[in-house]
């Protein structure tokens, strides 16, 4: 019995990891693009971006998942998510958009927190705008945003559980299944609680990683 449950939980955990990885891969760059939008000097773009960020941050992720996954099927002939792993991709899109918006604000804070004097120094040295951004601002921004980003990333580990609302079978779903009856076992409570260990172990690894990263970046200290 123990092995059956562990195997099933492992499968669920793998799905959780998949969503976690895909979300980061998508949201880290997208967040930077959004942060540019919200700092743009072109007013309509700035307002548009800020409205999107407001809507995405201002509504529950759970609701966004439900709307994104079900509503297209209400209005169209068939559901566009009716593809292989459609539920996963729907969840991935919702998570990427959601986390990119949170990341964008962290990036914005990081970028605007770099003293103007540094950019001016770059200009004096005859660097191009692009060089100033990548070689001066971005590098220092990365150092500044490590602590708030580690917060968001660890939150993401546990937020992946929300995707079970569109019946995507991640770790919590796998644990819960043994309560209802799965793999020939029903009414088992411990698998659900046992999933906590997976999250705990994974966020432990992440905490160590971010601690290491922060130390690695410390030579930027001014």
């Amino acid at each position, binding site marked *: 019995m123990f092995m059956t449950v562990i195997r099933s939980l492992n499968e669920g955990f793998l799905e959780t990891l998949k969503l976690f990885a895909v979300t980061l891969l998508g949201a880290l760059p997208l967040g930077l693009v959004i942060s540019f939008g919200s700092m743009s000097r072109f007013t309509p773009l700035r307002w548009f971006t800020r409205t999107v960020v407001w809507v995405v941050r201002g509504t529950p992720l759970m609701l966004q998942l439900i709307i994104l996954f079900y509503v297209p099927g209400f209005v169209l002939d068939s559901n566009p998510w009716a593809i292989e792993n459609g539920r996963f991709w729907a969840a991935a899109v919702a998570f990427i958009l959601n986390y990119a918006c949170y990341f964008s604000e962290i990036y914005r804070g990081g970028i605007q927190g770099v003293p103007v004097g540094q950019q001016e120094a770059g200009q004096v040295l005859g660097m191009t705008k692009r060089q100033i951004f990548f070689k001066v601002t971005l590098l220092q921004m990365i150092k500044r945003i490590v602590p708030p980003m580690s917060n968001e990333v660890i939150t993401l580990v546990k937020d992946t559980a929300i995707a079970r609302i569109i019946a995507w079978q991640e770790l919590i779903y796998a644990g819960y299944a043994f309560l209802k009856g799965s793999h020939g076992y029903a*009414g088992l409570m411990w698998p659900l609680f046992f999933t906590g260990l997976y999250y705990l172990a994974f966020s432990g690894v992440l905490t160590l990683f971010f601690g290491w990263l922060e130390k690695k970046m410390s030579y930027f200290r001014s």
Partner: protein
Amino acid sequence: MKAVRKVLCVVLVLLMAVACFTGCKKENKSDKEYVQEKGVLVVGITDFAPMDYQDEDGNWIGFDADLAKAFAKKLGVKVEFQLIDWDNKAFELEGKAIDVVWNGMTITDKVKAAMDCSNPYCNNQQMVIVKKSVADQYTTKDSVKGLKFAVEEGSAGQEQVEALGAEFTPVADQTAALLEVKAGTADAAVIDSLMAAATVGEGTDYADLMYTVGLNDEQYGVGFRKGSDLVDELNAFFKEYYESGEMLKLAKKYKIVESAIIEQK
């Protein structure tokens, strides 16, 4: 003047967006044609022995699962089982994420409002679950009236408890209701008799719970999208399947008592 033009622009864009959405709205294809064209019948289920559950190799079996396979074969399409969140079953259907809800679903007014149902094919009861230690005090319908219940939100069990006039807390699902009883936060739960037989008692974590009173008699049906022509198709299939004796054979295979199966006419 400039402001007016701006507003006009926004309104026009919105109108265009709306026109686009309504423009590409569904053509008049019947549900049967839609499923056959796509070549697969997506069956929405939850893990629910003995109706839909997985064997050791991960294949979906069970009374409902086997029926669904036979029905798909008759339609000439493949079958695909999709685990769903039971709360979202109407969304899943209307959003075309699944084509049918086939999972020991009790036919209630609420269900009938959300989807079109087949003829009933299986009898069920809503059972009161209490702790074993106090079970002998609650053997009649009247004796349980004063208990504090936990029931699945929107379930047939909730309707029964409401009719009983007892105090209750709605929870996420039937197992959560059992959890409440075990944890002592509720005195009793109400769940399906078929499920009660599988989840409560010896060999489960609910060995200290047992079922006592049956509150009602009710029936299971299969749910389709509103206006689907698959309803008639399934009713015809049920009749055929029952008359050939296959349905009772299937019930026997999954240890469902013969009297629970409803004759299909």
